């Protein structure tokens, strides 16, 4: 299932920030909440968070850029995350990752030019006894083989 995101709206962002401001150490919670609403964390949100939490803009920017999860621009319509960690490597994950790159014509960490598919690495989904594994738009898939990865790729290109 593809996630549906709201278009950027400063008033809505302010609301989300205000809701979470009273929490201890709220920065990550707010960044997660904004990304959940908009699909990414738009640039204008950074100074808004800084002002709400009484932090410098640089501090919030530093937090935002430190973590792999946070996006500065929207992802493709589908996000396919392939586990690239050791347990999946041991079970043939490297070959499947190469296959996905070849099929989509992009390298891991990028989005297809038509904006349909973002291909990302992930380091461990905790499905190491049913490796190799992947996550398509939040849905987990284990015991990947060529047929299963092809089916996922087809789904990710719709």
């Amino acid at each position: 299932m593809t996630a549906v995101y709201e278009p950027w709206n400063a008033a809505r962002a302010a609301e989300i920030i205000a809701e979470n401001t009273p929490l201890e150490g709220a920065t990550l919670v707010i960044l997660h909440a904004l990304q959940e609403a908009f699909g990414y964390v738009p640039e204008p949100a950074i100074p808004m968070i800084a002002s709400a939490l009484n932090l410098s803009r640089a501090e919030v920017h530093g937090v935002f850029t430190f973590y792999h999860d946070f996006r500065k621009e929207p992802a493709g319509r589908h996000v396919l995350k392939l586990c690239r960690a050791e347990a999946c490597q041991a079970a043939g994950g490297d070959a499947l990752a190469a296959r996905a790159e070849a099929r989509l014509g992009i390298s891991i960490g990028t989005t297809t030019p038509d904006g349909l598919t973002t291909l990302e690495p992930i380091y461990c989904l905790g499905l190491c006894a049913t490796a190799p594994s992947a996550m398509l738009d939040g849905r987990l898939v284990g015991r990947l083989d060529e047929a299963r990865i092809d089916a996922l790729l087809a789904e990710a290109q719709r």
Partner: protein
Amino acid sequence: MNFRIFIPRDAGAIAVGADDVTLALTQAAASRGVAVDFVRTGSRGLYWLEPMVEVATPRGRVAFGPMTPADAASVLDAMVTDGPHPLRLGIAAEIPWLRRQTRVTFARCGVVDPRSIDDFRARQGYKGLERALTLTSDEILADVTASGLRGRGGAGFPTGIKWKTVAQTAADRKYIVCNADEGDSGTFADRMIMEGDPFVVIEGMTIAGITVGATRGYIYIRSEYPHAVIAMNAAIQAAKRAGYLGERIGGSAHHFDLEVRVGAGAYVCGEETALLESLEGRRGIVRAKPPLPAHKGLFGRPTVINNVLSFAAIPFILAGGAKAYAGYGSDRSRGTMPIQLAGNVRHGGLFEAPFGITLGELVDDIGGGTLSGRPVRAVQVGGPLGAYFPRALFDTPFDYEAFAARDGLIGHGGIVVFDDSVDMSKQARFAMEFCAVESCGKCTPCRIGSTRGVETLDRIRAGDRVAENIGVVEDLCNTMKFGSLCALGGFTPYPVMSALKHFREDFGPAPTRLEAAE
């Protein structure tokens, strides 16, 4: 009478079709007019049999697996008639792979409904907290110390000493933090217990709270575990409703509240001080120690920070089990360890056993060798920072000191199995690359050493001055091991040096590797 059918809602089972099987069984039951109550449990951890479905019978729960939606109709018929079926595995609890285990921490996982606090209480749940509420802080600490429990996150620090330090440090506020940032590849025990028996984690944290005088706790769960986040949040709500969290827990004078916080994809946040920084809303940059988190932890307050499995071991210990717990294990590694068999392994899953079982028994006997059917060449124990062991070291007993004595570590208990197609210089390069990507950047040996390590290993793999460059890698590893601020830079040399030491034939230009293999 309705049939009771148990299907895991564990992420590992869902990833191989547990939800589809549930739907197919629901449809098959409806079309046959069979009344069924479905219970979504955790996983018992026999992942090669997942999705494993069980039906309640007077003799116990009978298991079927691995199921596909296409099997639903015939399996349902076999359940109704108690008849034979190719996927029938017999009484679940009597499956030899389960019977061989010593399930202490994972006793309820895969058995109970993780959303039901009544189910938890019906199976010894909250017995540990109830007894702890009748004890003084010192008495609880005595039990934890007597159990011999050591930190299950990997460092193996005695839990009793950590708690005692926090208990004895005066402060206006103290915190309990559960490290559920289980980032090591090949490990999934934290995920399983949070999804399959979340109340045991809550109970363990609550006991820690009343022991040290903390009233607030956080569970920091990695974002890669969305199902665990849902399970823990649901359990926290249920525990609040039942009076086990919040004001006057269990009718006592103690207060304790819990909140889940979600990570954001940074491996280094599994390091305890980086995790605390992240919880405070900052970049996950490692802190220098001292001060210890026990003295100045979250928001500068005394903090107990333990792994999920450490907290999950506590309720059994406090329910009168301290002596029994210490009775398991070998030498200074007391109790049981939930060991995770992963990667290219035939029988992968969660195997809880007393410390002391050998690596060979785990890999060959219990794991059944590789899934590919090829010979086992190497195993990596303890995650991305753990050493690669060859078959020659398979007599190593699984305990903290025995692995350390052989330049390895047990870490969080994950074992990743590789067959003979593995290229060990590639694995060594990956270890350096992973460290370079995930380094928090605070200390130079980790930040720069890992990048230089990748470059040098690339030269070795290209055949460029191999002997000389191996010397450079060894030198880099030495600097990283002794000069890094935390285990990320400090332990990355384990996989690299072990690969070099035990699989030297893989280090050189590709043609050499082929010749060496012949």
